[in-house]
């Protein structure tokens, strides 16, 4: 009888030890996360409330349609005609440039612009006071990041008749202006 009790006690002790060993099973793992934070800068065109509504406003590939322009006739909404002389007239509109940056210590940017191709006959393209050519020229040397900066887009059109130095009449004329923002 006593032997039986000893055997039972021993069996219980073994079971308890084995159960304790089971509860002690654990596993661990780690994730080694990495991220390369690069610096960057981006430029988009926004419509200005005082100007022509841009096509694809808010992107870096926008369009502006002056519609029908003339020295003396009606103009589209957002287009103004600040000057008319015997030799030429100017029409202009306002658009916004918004440049944002990240990861840079730059406090401002330099904006340059150039025509993608020589101006059509009878036309001169201007951004603010700068007459555009196919060579990039500085429009603004200290543009502020993260805000719409208004610029005037002007077209100086000769009043001469077509074939006499003036522009083609009655057919759409398109030009592309390249803008570049460079962090200062």
């Amino acid at each position, binding site marked *: 009888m006593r032997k039986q009790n000893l055997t039972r006690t021993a069996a219980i002790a073994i079971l308890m030890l084995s159960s304790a060993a089971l509860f002690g099973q654990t596993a661990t793992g780690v994730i080694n996360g990495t991220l390369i934070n690069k610096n960057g800068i981006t430029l988009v065109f926004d419509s200005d409330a005082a100007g022509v509504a841009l096509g694809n406003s808010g992107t870096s590939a926008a369009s502006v349609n002056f519609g029908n322009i003339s020295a003396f006739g009606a103009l589209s909404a957002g287009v103004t005609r600040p000057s008319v002389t015997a030799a030429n007239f100017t029409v202009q509109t306002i658009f916004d440039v918004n440049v944002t940056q990240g990861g840079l210590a730059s406090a401002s940017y330099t904006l340059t612009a150039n025509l993608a191709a020589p101006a059509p006959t009878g036309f001169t393209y201007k951004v603010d006071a700068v007459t555009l050519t196919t060579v990039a020229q500085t429009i603004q040397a200290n543009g502020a990041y993260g805000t719409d900066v208004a610029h005037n887009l002007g077209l100086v059109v000769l009043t001469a008749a077509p074939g006499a130095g003036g522009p083609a009449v009655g057919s759409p004329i398109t*030009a592309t202006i390249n803008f570049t923002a460079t962090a200062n």
Partner: protein
Amino acid sequence: MKAKFICGRARLLAALCVLAGACALPARAQTSAGQLTVTLNVQSSISLIFQTNPASPAAGFCALTNSGTNNVGLDLGSAAFPGSSYVGCGSYSHIGSATYQVTSAFDVVVSKANTSSPNYRLAAQISTPPPANVTWLVNNIVLTNTGFTNLDAADNYGTPVTKTLQVQVKNNVPAQLLSETITFLASAN
């Protein structure tokens, strides 16, 4: 020993290259580009404005209000058949025994742009029928309110063309304000 020295120099060069590269990266200007496509359509156009004649101020050459625009005023003053009572900048005269006339000259300038038109036609009309025995004329051509009356067939662009507005009033016309809006129409030839 020599081999060790060469190896050490190579390591130094490599280290310098890495350093130079690290320095050059932040110095490289960050840029972003955008394209704006501009579209337009040029139309031919002409404009007409009125100008005070350079002879003003002188009798028969009244100064226009808003001269230099296409909407001007021309006040001929006040007149009565007895010519001695005329007060104004115009020129007063009698036509026949029972009619007086007040006239004033002014200039019309028509400009063109982006057109090969060599010249233009000029016409005019009054806005309302005048009272009986009152006649409005330009350069002796009677104006009506029923349609434009041709004044010139081929005027030159960009050159002031002097026109004379005339009001002829018979002596039986009651006292009243005589007023007309005279519309001039220039048409490219």
